[in-house]
């Protein structure tokens, strides 16, 4: 089996806000066409790591390479055609229509003062169909429910048609049905179209069920990194998340299932 091409190479990356160290000594390699889960307790540095690999923050130490070039050497415009983000919280103050918001995902592809081309409109229609929001196309975004809005944001990121899709706890406000639906869409795109997904997730079972590999952050350090089949053990869960749990490996296509001990 040939090794899939490397996308991100992080070596000895550190970052701090003012005097608070957030990330320290992160060494990490991420390959193309994989579904990565980014796990860790609140404040473990997940969002900061996402900002760093998207070029939003500059690493204070260490290097971040994307396709063998420093992330800082790319312009915002270039990165926007490569990496898309689905943020956790999303609110709009102006009454744009759903289809307008999804079309904004095409912003990096449409030259200034040009109208959307046929490919742009097709990408928008395709993304709305995938996220099951075609019937909402003319509704103002302010009038949508939380779940509908999150699907609009997902569609916006899909319409961007990037190689890498980064989700920052994008499903944490959704009900279980839409959460699973979104994860299935991601999984399918990774397997069939070679998309790379990096998803910060709180729900460990969700990560175990859909991801190829998981990265576990603890107190700003990369605590563990490996394929989900081997990564999840009672010991890791205890040390990284301070919970007691048993991990089952039967059924579910060999993917682990975690059973927490509540008392």
């Amino acid at each position: 089996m040939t090794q899939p091409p490397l996308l991100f190479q992080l070596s000895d990356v550190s970052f701090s806000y003012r005097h608070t160290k957030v990330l320290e000594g992160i060494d990490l390699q991420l390959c193309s066409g994989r579904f990565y889960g980014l796990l860790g307790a609140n404040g473990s540095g997940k969002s900061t790591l996402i900002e760093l690999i998207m070029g939003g923050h500059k690493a204070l130490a260490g290097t971040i390479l994307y396709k063998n070039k420093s992330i800082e050497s790319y312009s915002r415009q270039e990165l926007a055609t490569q990496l898309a983000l689905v943020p956790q919280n999303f609110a709009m103050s102006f009454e744009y229509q759903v289809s307008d918001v999804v079309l904004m995902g095409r912003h990096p592809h449409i030259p200034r003062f040009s109208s959307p081309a046929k490919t742009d409109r097709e990408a928008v229609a395709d993304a709305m169909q995938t996220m099951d929001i075609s019937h909402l196309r003319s509704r103002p975004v302010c009038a949508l429910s939380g779940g509908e809005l999150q699907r609009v944001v997902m569609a916006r990121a899909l319409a961007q048609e990037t190689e890498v899709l980064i989700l920052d706890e994008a499903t944490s406000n959704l009900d279980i049905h839409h959460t699973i639906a979104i994860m299935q869409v991601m999984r399918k795109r990774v397997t069939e179209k070679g998309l790379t997904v990096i998803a910060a997730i709180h729900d460990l079972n969700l990560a175990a069920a859909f991801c190829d590999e998981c990265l576990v952050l603890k107190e700003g350090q990369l605590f563990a990194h490996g394929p989900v089949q081997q990564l999840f053990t009672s010991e890791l869960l205890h040390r990284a998340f301070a919970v007691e749990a048993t991990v089952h490996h039967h059924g579910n296509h060999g993917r682990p299932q975690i059973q927490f001990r509540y008392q």
Partner: protein
Amino acid sequence: MTSSRPILLIMLLFLTLCATIILATGMGFLEIAPLEVIKILWSQAGNHKVSGIDPTFPFVVMEVRLPRILTAALVGGGLAVAGAVFQAILLNPLADPYTLGISSGAAFGASLAIVLSLFGIFVPAWLSIPVFAFLGAMATLIGVFSLAAPDNRLSSNTLILSGVIVAAILSAGIGFIKYLADEQVSVIIFWLMGSFVGRTWADVLSTTVVVLPGLLFILYFARDLNVMALGERTADTLGVETARVKKMLLLCASLITAICVSVSGIIGFIGLIIPHLLRLILGPDNRMLLPACFLGGAILLLGADTITRAWLPAEIPIGVLTSLIGGPFFCYIFRKKQLAAAS
């Protein structure tokens, strides 16, 4: 986004503006028929000889009315566009040039110039007032920015809070200047209320060279402004240099505000009401909204100025008139929106 309705509306607004300019030119103490106004403009444009018109009319049109009318239109358009830009950048449909304290800064500068000239320190007033107003606006902008600077993403909350703080200090400063002016305080008060009385072609020129290039500059970034409605973090990932675009457009809108305040005094609510109304009709797409705001603001302020100049028995300061009409109107819209949100 692709419908032709917004373009039709912009053309309609443009025609309305032309008609308003011609009608307003004919109105006043000396009534001039619209057709005669057009004839005079035509003759002045190409040095044609037109017969059958009272020989004093061309002077009234060209030297008395038109400078005032064009200044009012440009100031109205400029304030409305500046308001729309502040709203799009601060992601707050209720923001306007006043939210950042820019207008207060300009007013402070102008009051200072007036009080200095009262003490005989800085003359002549016709030069010092616009210059000081402009410097005041710019100094306020710099002050607000440096207060907000530690937050290098320039979030809306930080900017608005900084604007409120600076505006509070400035209004205390204006109060102190009024106190210093003692018995001659009425000069400052009258200036602060806003007026287009006695505007000249020099005012038209100075407003034009700032407002029109400013409008074009802002239009260049109209689509980036749309994307910035998704929030700073998302706009960054869509290839928009959010912090840079924000800084440049805030500077540009403040410049427009400063020049408008310096030629006319404080005129409120145009920057709030016009973008708000047009957004209800056109939707939030800035590529259509911004040109429509320029035309709509021009029509509204010119209309209001014509009412006080030609209709009312005594001329009310235009700033007072716009606030008297605009304030309650805005309360109505705001209330309606609150009720709609609650139901």
